[in-house]
């Protein structure tokens, strides 16, 4: 299935040669002594789960982060990349997973933005012909270069991001999950562009979860797991099965649990009908019962997080019939949703979750001050005892009660955050977005146990995750989502990792040959 290797590809000296690269973020080692080489004229896939280290390697190669140790050679010359501009000067162009477009600028301005070779003097519309050509090549015939990026759909934005990288005539084009938000036709355009690039002897690094794309497009694949480089193989030697095995490693399929929990009195019932969250999600239906843990499994842009935010009242435009314990909830205001019994834990723990500078205690009781207040005064004894209960629930040392949250590890921060969300009142709807993002393996298991206990107490849990392992490990019902729609809903015991991965990365396993089946 893989492309026939070009003659001389295997013998040409590598354009990028990275040796012994290590990068740590706080206590987490994102890359551990990784080596990687990229030859001219090849499409090189980087494969692995979220957190495997692909994106970190990409960021190092494009000058966005600096490794702790290791050497980087480009075109035979040892280089240190301090800034994106320096990477650009060495011929690297990046299409970041998080888009780096400025919505307030036009398409043309965004394509020129940050190009170190862009001349000082510019004529508005001066590079319109060249821009037009690149846009047409990507199937963006209908997009005028003078359109503002904020007016484009998410898939179109992704293509503009790719157009910018193409416009730079780089020797190495890095595409980090370029197709997560694209339709089939749009993907074909991207493929054609990539093939053109390598036909000119330039190279492409292709990061993707989508195995079908890798098999179809790439020459070689490097597989990463837990920050380590597992193996680099010619794609022609591999098939889907083999790739999945390399990605998953020899981790056994997580034990399958019974969907039902012991009942603990009151049980939440949640029905969601016809939920729409502009601009992406439409017609979302779901029923959840206390004791149930439901995963919304999907990549960034699938709509899973948006559903949770809407249910938390954080999207003013969201509409739908939602009822919790028989009571209808009008969305659009966090206050109303909290009163109705929802508790939301954002995936952006630092930005939208914790009050970093404040103590563990204050963070734990932050959302329940009204209940702990008499005559406007916070009852200190009551607050302290609630905090003590919660810190015991999350299994942290009581001595840490007064520590500012900012000084805790990522795992402990997440536990404090979830602790705040637990046991607010009985029988509620817990909405957890990426519950273990940035948490190491040990912390992850503890957090999963917390969630299970919460469910066992009669809460309904809906969590959104982009991580396959987490979905399989924690959920008893899995709802796969893609491009704003539910692909399918199935009980955990009927799900296989390959199926879920296929749904998450491509929406529909039948529509496209070559997707993991």
């Amino acid at each position: 299935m893989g492309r026939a290797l070009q003659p001389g590809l295997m013998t040409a000296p590598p354009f990028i040669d990275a040796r012994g690269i290590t990068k740590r973020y706080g206590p987490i080692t994102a890359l551990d002594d990784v080596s990687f080489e990229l030859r001219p004229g090849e499409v090189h896939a980087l494969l692995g789960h979220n957190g495997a280290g692909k994106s970190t390697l990409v960021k190092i190669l494009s000058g966005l982060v600096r490794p702790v140790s290791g050497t980087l050679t480009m075109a035979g010359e040892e280089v240190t990349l301090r800034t994106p501009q320096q990477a650009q000067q060495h011929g690297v162009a990046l299409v970041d997973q998080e888009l780096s477009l400025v919505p307030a600028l036009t398409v043309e301005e965004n394509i020129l933005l940050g190009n170190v070779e862009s001349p000082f003097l510019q004529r508005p519309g001066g590079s319109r012909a060249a821009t037009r050509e690149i846009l047409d090549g990507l199937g963006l015939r209908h997009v005028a270069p003078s359109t503002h990026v904020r007016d484009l759909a998410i898939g179109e934005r992704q293509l503009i991001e790719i157009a910018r990288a193409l416009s730079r005539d780089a020797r190495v084009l890095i595409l980090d999950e370029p197709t997560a938000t694209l339709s089939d036709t749009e993907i074909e355009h991207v493929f054609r562009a990539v093939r053109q690039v390598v036909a000119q002897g330039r190279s492409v690094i292709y990061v993707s979860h989508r195995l079908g794309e890798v098999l179809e497009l790439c020459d070689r694949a490097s597989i990463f797991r837990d920050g380590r480089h597992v193996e680099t193989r010619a794609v022609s030697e591999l098939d889907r099965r083999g790739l999945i095995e390399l990605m998953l490693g020899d981790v056994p399929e997580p034990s399958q649990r019974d969907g039902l929990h012991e009942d603990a009195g009151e049980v939440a019932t949640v029905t969601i009908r016809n939920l729409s969250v502009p601009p992406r999600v439409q017609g979302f239906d779901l029923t959840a019962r206390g004791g149930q843990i439901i995963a919304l499994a999907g990549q960034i842009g699938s709509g899973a997080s948006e559903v949770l935010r809407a249910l938390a009242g954080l999207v003013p435009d969201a509409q739908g019939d939602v009822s919790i314990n028989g009571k209808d909830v009008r969305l659009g205001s966090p206050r109303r949703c909290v009163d109705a019994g929802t508790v939301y834990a954002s995936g952006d723990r630092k930005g939208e979750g914790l009050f970093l500078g404040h103590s563990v205690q204050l963070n734990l009781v932050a959302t329940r001050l009204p209940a702990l207040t008499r005559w406007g005064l916070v009852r200190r004894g009551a607050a302290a005892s609630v905090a003590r209960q919660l810190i015991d629930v999350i299994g942290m040392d009581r001595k840490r009660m007064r520590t500012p949250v900012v000084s805790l590890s990522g795992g402990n921060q997440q536990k404090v955050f979830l602790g705040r969300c637990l046991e607010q009142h009985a029988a509620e709807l817990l909405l957890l977005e990426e519950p273990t993002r940035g948490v190491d393996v040990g912390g992850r298991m503890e957090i999963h146990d917390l969630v299970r206990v919460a469910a066992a107490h009669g809460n309904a849990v809906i969590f959104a995750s982009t991580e396959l392992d987490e979905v399989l490990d924690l959920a008893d019902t899995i709802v796969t989502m893609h491009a704003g729609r539910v692909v399918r809903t199935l009980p955990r015991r009927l799900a296989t990792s390959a199926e879920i991965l296929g749904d998450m990365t491509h929406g529909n396993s039948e529509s496209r040959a070559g997707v993991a089946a």
Partner: protein
Amino acid sequence: MSSVALKDPRRTRELARTSAPFLILALMLVAFYVLPQLSGREATVFNVFNSMQNFAALGLVALALGLTMIAGEFDLSVVGMYGLGSMLAVMTGKDSALLGLGIALLAGLFVGLVQGTIIAKLRINSMPVTLGGYLLLLGLTATIGHDDSQSYPNLSVGSSLDSVVAQIFSLRSLVAVGVFVVVTLAMRYTRLGRDIRAIGGDRRASRTAGVPVDRMLIGVFALSSVLSALAGALIAYSLATATPDPGLAPLIFAITAVLLGGVTLAGGQGAALAIAAGAITLSLLQELFSILGTPTYVSSLITGGLLVLVTIIAAPDLKQWWRTVRTRRGGPTASAASVGSSPAATVTGER
């Protein structure tokens, strides 16, 4: 749901947004001509000249502040530099006005570079930094001026700066117009305009895309201070005096003009020409007050009200707030309507 179908209303909205400052200016011009006649007075060409004189001083301060706002920051120290610029020009330019002007501009450059470096390199909020900067400059101005107004002996400098050119301009207002033209051209025809709007629109994305963010920020703050110093020096020569504390009026003018010019506090949007339109609109308004003999407190009320009004219109959460209010106020009917045809849409409306 392709973008083709939606393109036209977007274009229209965009056009409305970018042309609003000029429409407001046009309305102002009509009012400037009509309103005095209603009360038996008349707006003369000299009144227009006066407006442009006001524009010459405060328009530049507006441009200075506006550039930092387009870049997503806020330079509170513009008034401080405006004051220091005028004091330096008066105190050091006694022998040669050009020397005084040069010293004022150099001081502006230095102040801007220091503030910009602190803000860019330390990634620190520009409000407290420039507030500190403002106090410092204010103190420096008063110290240099011995806590008192200082007069400039060479009156001929002022009269030649203010002599009428082409009926409505003076040398001073032509300098301001020239600066606006240069900045407009630079914003349109060089990389700089795009980069400034980019770092205001999305700092992280700009950095990833390869924009030299820190250098741009430092440059914007340097330019802001230089422009403020220029405005201060020119007005000082014109009035042949410099005060130890210009007060907050220039800042109020500048903010209102910038917001009238369509620059948002979120950054990433705005053009020098539109800021000029905003500043001219305000200058005309102030001149209109004096033609009509409006009491100061009325003009103060109108100026303050105008500032609050444009701030409300430019507020980032206005739309969102309105939507929330609408759903809340709507009660059962609105929410039933909002979920459309769904038969299950019965809401108890307990609130």
